[in-house]
């Protein structure tokens, strides 16, 4: 990288903190008629009204630690997990915290920034903000971005269920979007996560993210859902986002309320996971570990 390029990059990231600071009050005001996620509840979270995510104006953190379980190119990462989510995935691995925005401890930006800086000095490669779903806590997420040193590589781990409004506030804030594409059809999305119009919304978010940041699309393979969910996703990715990195995860386990769905009562069979990888290869997807 030339000195000029370095200067441009630094100007961009320094600008990021300033932009984030400017956007915090805008994002906070948006809670008065909350349409940050595609449920478009329109409730006033500032006065105690609750939408489908049940979140108010407080943000809580249920985990903040160095992790090495995500995609290799992001590791080690300092993962900051915010409580609460706008989806209701039966199989959620962090269901107790993701379905409950009151889980964890209140976010203290100063403490969190200090912990993040310590992790950065210890050598983490990225800082990841996740949930639950961080989109529902956009004001707090922007506060975190505003407080972090400019050199940090920031990852937005999301369910890709944001609105145009939320995306506008997120534009330029994160180096990488690590986005879930969970279901390959609307019926499975509605049955397993109580989310309508899933395909249209998630695709809109993924296309946007591919144009505004680096994008990694993650799909958690679910037992019995290779044909109905994974294959349609693979087909769409091959057609619409052929150069995007795809992370195929086969570590499903029957967490939370998965037992309510007969096909989700056990882990992925190795043979089914292998078939899913064959599908990815047949579509020429750019798989990463």
């Amino acid at each position: 990288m030339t000195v000029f390029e370095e200067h441009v990059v630094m100007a961009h990231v320094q600008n990021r903190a300033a932009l984030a600071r400017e956007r915090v009050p805008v994002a906070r005001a948006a809670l008065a008629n909350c349409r940050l996620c595609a449920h478009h509840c329109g409730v006033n979270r500032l006065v105690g009204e609750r939408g489908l995510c049940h979140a108010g104006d407080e943000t809580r953190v249920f985990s903040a630690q160095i992790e090495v379980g995500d995609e290799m190119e992001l590791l080690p990462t300092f993962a900051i997990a915010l409580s609460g989510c706008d989806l209701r995935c039966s199989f959620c691995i962090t269901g107790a915290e993701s379905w409950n925005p009151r889980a964890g401890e209140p976010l203290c930006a100063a403490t969190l920034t200090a912990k993040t800086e310590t992790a950065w000095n210890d050598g983490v490669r990225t800082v990841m903000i996740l949930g639950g779903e961080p989109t529902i806590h956009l004001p707090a997420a922007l506060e975190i971005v505003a407080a972090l040193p400019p050199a940090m590589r920031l990852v937005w781990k999301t369910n890709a269920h944001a609105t145009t409004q939320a995306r506008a506030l997120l534009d330029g804030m994160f180096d990488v979007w690590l986005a879930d594409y969970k279901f390959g059809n609307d019926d499975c999305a509605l049955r397993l996560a109580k989310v309508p119009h899933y395909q249209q919304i998630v695709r809109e978010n993924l296309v946007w993210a591919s144009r505004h940041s680096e994008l990694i699309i993650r799909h958690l393979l679910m037992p019995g859902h290779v044909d109905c969910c994974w294959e349609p996703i693979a087909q769409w990715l091959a057609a619409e986002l052929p150069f995007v990195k795809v992370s195929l995860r086969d570590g499903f386990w029957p967490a939370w309320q998965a037992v309510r769905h007969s096909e989700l009562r056990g882990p992925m069979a190795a043979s089914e996971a292998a078939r899913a990888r064959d599908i990815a290869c047949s579509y020429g997807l750019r798989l990463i570990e």
Partner: protein
Amino acid sequence: MKAKTEHRYMETSRSAAATEILIQADGRILVHNLTPAMAELLSIINPSDEPMKQRLRAVNSPWCQ
């Protein structure tokens, strides 16, 4: 009078690093929120697990010097 407990809003917290593991009947281990310490432990348990070694190498890479 017994206080009503709102389980859905019960507060929970994790003050220390935490990893969850699931040991399957066939001996495979699934891990969530894998910390470097747990990666090291799992690598000791099964030294032939190459993906786990790769994750440990990430911790020991130049990024972490």
